[in-house]
């Protein structure tokens, strides 16, 4: 191949070439690293601490969405991957609710924090995942237990689904 004079108009920019090679190398190295240390995305759903939920609900005139789960609950993990890690669904939740995530710790620690246990009892939560939607006035609007699929959850959350 004819050697191109680096001063000619057809020379490849060396800086860009070096950058491309280095980035390819870094890409391979980071792929290997993440295989053993997978990265967890920052939650797409803007979860609010329990103690701030009611005040925010009144301030923003949005109902509270209580999401009850447990670490040992496999359907919860599937749902979190399918729904909460989905851009569209997360955006819909953030726009329509004050989302609060509550974890049942009875299996691991024997008891739940009093505030969490009170909510579990108030909404008669007997399985996970469960959702309770509470209006600004404090009255429960809807309750759901179980996953049932991405579309089903979106319909419960009153987020338009692709089929709508």
């Amino acid at each position: 191949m004819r050697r191109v004079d680096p001063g000619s108009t057809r020379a490849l920019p060396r800086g860009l070439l070096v950058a491309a090679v280095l980035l390819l190398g870094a890409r391979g190295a980071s792929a290997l690293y993440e295989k053993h240390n997978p990265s967890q995305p920052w939650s797409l759903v803007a979860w609010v601490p329990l103690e701030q939920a009611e005040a925010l609900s009144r301030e923003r005139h949005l109902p509270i969405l209580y999401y009850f789960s447990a670490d040992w609950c496999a359907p919860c993990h599937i749902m979190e991957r399918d729904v909460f890690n989905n851009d569209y669904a997360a955006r819909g939740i953030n726009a329509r609710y004050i989302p609060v995530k509550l974890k049942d710790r009875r299996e691991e620690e024997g008891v739940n924090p009093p505030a969490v246990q009170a909510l579990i009892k108030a909404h008669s939560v007997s399985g996970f995942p469960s959702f309770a939607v509470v209006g600004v006035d404090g009255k429960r609007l809807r309750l759901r237990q179980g996953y049932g699929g991405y579309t089903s959850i979106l319909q419960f959350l009153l987020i338009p689904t692709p089929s709508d």
Partner: protein
Amino acid sequence: MMSMPLYRSRVTRSFHRFSTLVPPLAFVMVSLAWSVAMLLYTNFLLTPEMELPKEIFLIPLGVGLSSIGRDATEGLLPVLLTRPLRRSTYVLSQWAAMGTVASFWALLHLVLQWGLIVAATPHGPMPLEVLYNAIGRVSLCLGMAATLVCFSTRLPGWGHLALWGVLFFIAERVLPGLGKDESARFALTVRQYLLGVLMPELDIRRTFAATPVSWLRLTTYFSNVTLMLLLGIHIFNHREVSYASR
């Protein structure tokens, strides 16, 4: 590496040309008009939402109507290349200009949407969410500009848009269907890589805000952009341009 006069002239030309001014402007206006119409039709029940960065991919495509292929078709290339201008400088200036103009329209659309949401609802999206969305949009515009410029170094007229469209169709419609078959699962991996080239985007939530920071996403984005630019420069370097060729 980049020529400022060429960059400025390309940016200015994008706003003076009908074919590159109207499509992104139309997208912004139609999108906002639709949101306003839905708002009024549903009596303020269906409040607008900020579009995700990948949902504004039509903006870079609209801006990409003016590209290297277009310069070739109009006979501008032989004139430009008689100057002591490196071909790589020309390609990089085209990329920077296309990315800048597309980012301008994408950010204008974001600001107008944000304003509409704040006006229509008692609260607006969180400023951090808007910032993440803005960064995502700019990264998408610059990424898609690199891909479109690469395609346009060889294809005449609007051929680069046609090629982009065909590849996008394959990625969104053909490969997912193939990937359903157990023996062709590799199709889903191919789809992932293809979309990473056609619509490169930096998702801040999944990159910097992740735990730990996702260096893979970061390096993949920059690697894809630099590779497309290098490939475009390489193709353009080997392209013969004369008054007799298109």
